[in-house]
């Protein structure tokens, strides 16, 4: 089962900072939360930061001369500084959205709906989350552009040869996930960005599943656009980030129109505020930015490299444990070096929904479904999978509980 002592983080101690994990469950057992790819749990200090904001400094930002408004603005913009710093990106290129999905739609609508024309191609992969597929389909339907899907190998990798063949002079955008939420695959996004740029295409990297789990350096990836989301990185719901090349943001027309994002409004037309605010219409997610800022400081205190090391160790433990379950098929890479913290699998004769339900009765939370990756499901030839996903607070105990419950589950449903 691997030796928990080798694990790079003291996850048991870290768990104490997460009230939902520290509290005993109604049935007395521990909560084995293995669904962090869907959303992470939140440490107390993140909740405290938001609470303190509302109790001490709540006011609308950017426009008030009174001290409360200045304090609110400071705390809000400090959240932006933190988000930018975490991925090594300039703050003026760091736009707050409501989630990663909106960040991708922002690019699809503000750039794509205006710039794409009939016959232009947007290349995505078969393992994209729906949030990095549907926005491109929507603008393609409006503009006559075409969305092309790069296949995935049986091992769960992007077929790089196929991708090379797909990216050409008609390609205007290559949008690719950094770490697959379903398979756990870590994709060579730096290489893909270089490949796209060589053909004059823009790129978008969906870093939703990488930023929470490992050091991500936007500067070295070099993508035109990178997106991630607050609620999967110990932060609150209601906030996401678009890290874009400032030059693109300056050149692009706005997406959402309204308060905050304007410089002047007349009955004849309007002019825009400086970036990043040009892309933040209306009252922004203020408390959420404060919470995200604290989440970033928490991740920095723990150390993204140590989180990554911990999750590689958990991956080793997980792969061994899943091997011990009869009738289990794992999807995605087997090498802990090449994978993130999501593990999708099938259990012979038991439907994923039934796995999820059974495991829940043992205090183990896993997801069952298509994980918003239906094209990938079809490519794998399944309708759905069960998925266990780990994070910095995941312990070997959680993995053992999962293994034991899976073995029991198969017996319960009397699989042939």
């Amino acid at each position, binding site marked *: 089962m691997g030796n928990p002592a080798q694990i790079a983080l003291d996850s048991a101690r870290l768990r104490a900072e997460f009230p939902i994990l520290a509290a005993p469950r109604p049935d007395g057992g521990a909560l084995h939360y293995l669904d962090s790819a869907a959303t992470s749990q939140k440490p107390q200090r993140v909740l405290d930061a938001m609470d303190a904001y509302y109790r001490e400094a709540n006011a609308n930002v950017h426009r008030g001369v009174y001290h409360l408004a200045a304090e609110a603005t400071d705390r809000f913009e400090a959240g932006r500084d933190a988000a930018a710093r975490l991925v090594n990106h300039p703050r003026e290129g760091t736009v707050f959205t409501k989630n990663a999905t909106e960040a991708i739609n922002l690019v699809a609508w503000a750039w794509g709906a205006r710039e794409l024309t009939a016959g232009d191609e947007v290349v995505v992969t078969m393992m994209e989350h729906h949030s990095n597929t549907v926005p491109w389909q929507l603008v393609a339907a409006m503009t006559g552009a075409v969305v092309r899907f790069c296949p995935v190998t049986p091992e769960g990798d992007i077929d790089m040869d196929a991708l090379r063949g797909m990216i050409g002079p008609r390609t205007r955008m290559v949008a690719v996930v950094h770490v697959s939420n379903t398979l756990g695959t870590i994709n060579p996004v730096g290489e893909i960005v270089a490949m796209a740029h060589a053909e004059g295409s823009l790129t978008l990297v969906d870093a939703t599943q990488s930023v929470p789990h490992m050091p991500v350096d936007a500067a070295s990836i070099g993508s035109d656009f990178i997106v991630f989301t607050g609620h999967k990185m110990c932060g609150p719901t209601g906030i996401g980030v678009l890290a874009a090349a400032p030059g693109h943001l300056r050149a692009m027309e706005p997406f959402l129109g309204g308060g905050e994002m304007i410089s002047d409004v007349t009955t004849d037309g309007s002019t825009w505020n400086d970036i990043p605010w040009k892309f933040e219409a209306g009252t922004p997610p203020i408390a959420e930015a404060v919470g995200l800022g604290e989440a970033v400081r928490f991740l920095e205190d723990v150390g993204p490299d140590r989180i990554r090391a911990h999750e590689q160790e958990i991956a080793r433990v997980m792969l061994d444990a899943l091997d011990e379950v009869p009738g289990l098929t794992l999807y995605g890479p087997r090498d802990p070096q090449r994978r993130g913290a999501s593990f999708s699998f099938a259990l012979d004769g038991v439907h994923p929904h039934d796995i999820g339900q059974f495991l829940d009765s043992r205090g183990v939370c896993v997801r069952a479904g*298509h994980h918003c990756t239906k094209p990938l499901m079809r490519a794998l030839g399944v*309708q759905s999978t069960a998925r266990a996903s780990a994070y910095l607070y995941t312990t070997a105990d959680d993995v053992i509980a999962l293994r034991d419950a899976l073995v029991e589950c198969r017996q319960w*449903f009397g699989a042939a």
Partner: protein
Amino acid sequence: MGGLDDLYQQLILDHYRNRRGRGRLEGASASVHENNPVCGDECFLDILVEDGRLADIRADGDGCSISQAAASMLTEAARGRDLDDALALVEHFRLVMHGDAEPEEDLLGDAVALEGVARYPVRVKCALLSWLALRDCIAEYRETTAMGG
């Protein structure tokens, strides 16, 4: 174990392992194909209408134990009923699943065992998939025959 036994009654597991009324129907009077967006489960439903009655009904497609057992129980409970009866049956089952009616065993047959599902909102969709497919299938049948007549 508690909740689990309650949800997965023996009768359900039995229908799951030995599905009744499974497959497709040659020369069906109407067919629908529905899916559950939450999990991707699919249901193909075919009906054969003769003299205003469901002379035959088949459900196909993969899914979890609840959706498979529900489809199996549906074919048993609905076969032979006239169309309005069948719709009333579906409506009763829908209400039971939403906790808005007490299950009537006379009507539901084995499907009464699904009662416990009502306490698991996400699974309610699984149980209802094939049943609501029957409702849509009857509507489909009526529309096409109305147009034909």
